[in-house]
């Protein structure tokens, strides 16, 4: 046995990685708990990959067959309903943990120099996760998913210059059709996973290279926090969190399996009570509230430009908040909280 291990060790040199993990210190301080969010996202992503591959064994991405193939997964295939339910719920759990991760980094200002790029790759990972959800939502091809996709893919149109093309690109034409479905499927199952893994590689590399941040106050006071070895001590604690989350996920997935509406009909009017996935509700409500015209410009264009500006500000946050310990840093934090309150408020309102 040890001979085989030695054979591999001689060629792979894994012990260097293990040594690195043992050497790496996770600082223990009042914000350490948020360090658990990152790996939780990875767990949910892993579950998405596994269940997604299983679903793809039976799923058929065509206009005629998509809805029926999911019905078959739900009713005929052994454990099909739970695989779909876990995929659907794990998407939600993944996006929740991405949000929590991002908010915790923002509020503890862990993005400050030299971790600006870590934040930016993280912001892109959020965008990719949302795009995963958006493309996945169409795949069941029922009434709701069609209406949500029509609206979602029409939104870029309001962007000056490139908007028209972006809408055409997303739809694979001027309208949502079977071509849109093929496109969303291939984005969902090949392009986005590859992009996500690439971004993740950079994100994780930066985290290893730069080490974990300390709370802002301790850094200013030049304090050192006590540390814990990453491997195996911290990983073992994280694993305990993963197990709890896994239990939670499976419980929710068993109790609340997602429904499947009647197949989408390109001719039918949009069903009443159309709503996107919960993470787009604040955008949905914003679009609903914007008047048709503000002065000469369409309300939609203004809404979309504002949303774009907000997204850009989020992406560039570490550069905007370049002196986090000063008054400016407090103002940025307040603005971030205000945005958070806005998004939450709008989401709740849209459900009333």
């Amino acid at each position, binding site marked *: 046995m040890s001979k085989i291990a030695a054979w591999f060790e001689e060629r792979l040199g894994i012990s260097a990685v293990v040594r690195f993990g043992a050497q790496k210190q996770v600082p223990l301080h009042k914000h350490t708990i948020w360090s658990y969010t990152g790996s939780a996202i990875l767990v949910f992503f892993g579950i998405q990959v596994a269940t997604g591959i299983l679903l793809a064994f039976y799923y058929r991405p065509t206009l005629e067959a998509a809805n029926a193939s999911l019905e078959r997964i739900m009713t005929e295939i052994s454990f099909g309903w739970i695989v779909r339910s876990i995929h659907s719920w794990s998407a939600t759990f993944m996006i929740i943990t991405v949000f929590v991760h991002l908010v915790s980094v923002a509020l503890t200002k862990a993005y400050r120099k030299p971790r600006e790029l870590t934040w930016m790759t993280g912001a892109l990972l959020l965008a990719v996760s949302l795009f995963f959800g958006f493309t996945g939502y169409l795949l069941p091809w029922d009434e709701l998913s069609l*209406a949500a996709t*029509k*609206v979602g*893919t*029409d*939104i870029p149109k309001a962007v000056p210059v490139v908007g028209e*093309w972006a809408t*055409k*690109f997303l739809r*694979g*034409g*001027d*309208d*949502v*059709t079977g*071509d849109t479905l093929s496109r969303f499927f291939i984005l969902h199952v090949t392009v986005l996973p590859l992009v996500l893994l690439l971004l993740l590689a950079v994100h994780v590399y930066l985290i290893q290279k730069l080490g974990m941040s300390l709370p802002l106050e301790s850094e200013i006071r030049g304090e050192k926090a006590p540390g814990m070895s990453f491997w195996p001590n911290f990983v073992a604690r994280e694993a305990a969190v993963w197990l709890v989350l896994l239990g939670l996920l499976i419980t929710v997935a068993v109790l609340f399996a997602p429904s499947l509406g009647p197949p989408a009909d*390109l*001719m*039918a*009017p*949009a*069903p*009443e*009570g*159309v709503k996107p996935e919960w993470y787009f509700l604040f955008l*949905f409500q914003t*679009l*609903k509230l*914007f*008047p*048709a*015209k503000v002065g000469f410009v*369409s*309300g*939609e264009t203004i809404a979309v430009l504002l949303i774009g500006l907000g997204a850009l500000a989020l992406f560039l946050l570490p550069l905007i908040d370049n002196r986090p310990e000063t008054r400016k840093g407090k103002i940025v934090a307040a603005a971030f909280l205000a945005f958070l309150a806005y998004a939450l408020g709008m989401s709740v309102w849209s459900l009333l």
Partner: protein
Amino acid sequence: MKILYSLFSRRRFLNGLLAGLGTAFAGTFVGPVVRFVTPPYREPDEVKLPLAGYKDMAPGEVRSFPWGIKPGFLKRRDDGSFLGFVGVCTHLDCNVAYKADQKKFFCACHDGWYDEDGRNIQGPPPTPLRRLTAVLEGEELVVRKSEA
């Protein structure tokens, strides 16, 4: 004039040349790929409907018809002629429904309303429903895109 030392090393020149050629080469693929991923427009120029299905409509009545792959609506005017609409919301592209009891078009996506002539009257829709012209040609009703 002879420059005694090189401003630009051979290595840098060759690297630049290679990078430039490489970029240009890769660039030639961008156009075709961009065109490949955006297919041509598919809305019909005209749709022919058998008059039989619409002859019995009362003045003011609205009935749906397939405008290519989109829903369309025909309204019978008081003078007996027909007026067509593309049944797609001008806000964000959802299909609208005609509510006969209220004589209005309704879009469920963000609560948009249009009157029976397709004018946007409430909610986010920025413009009226797109109009189509419908003319009688023998036993067929031919619906075309409006010029204006």
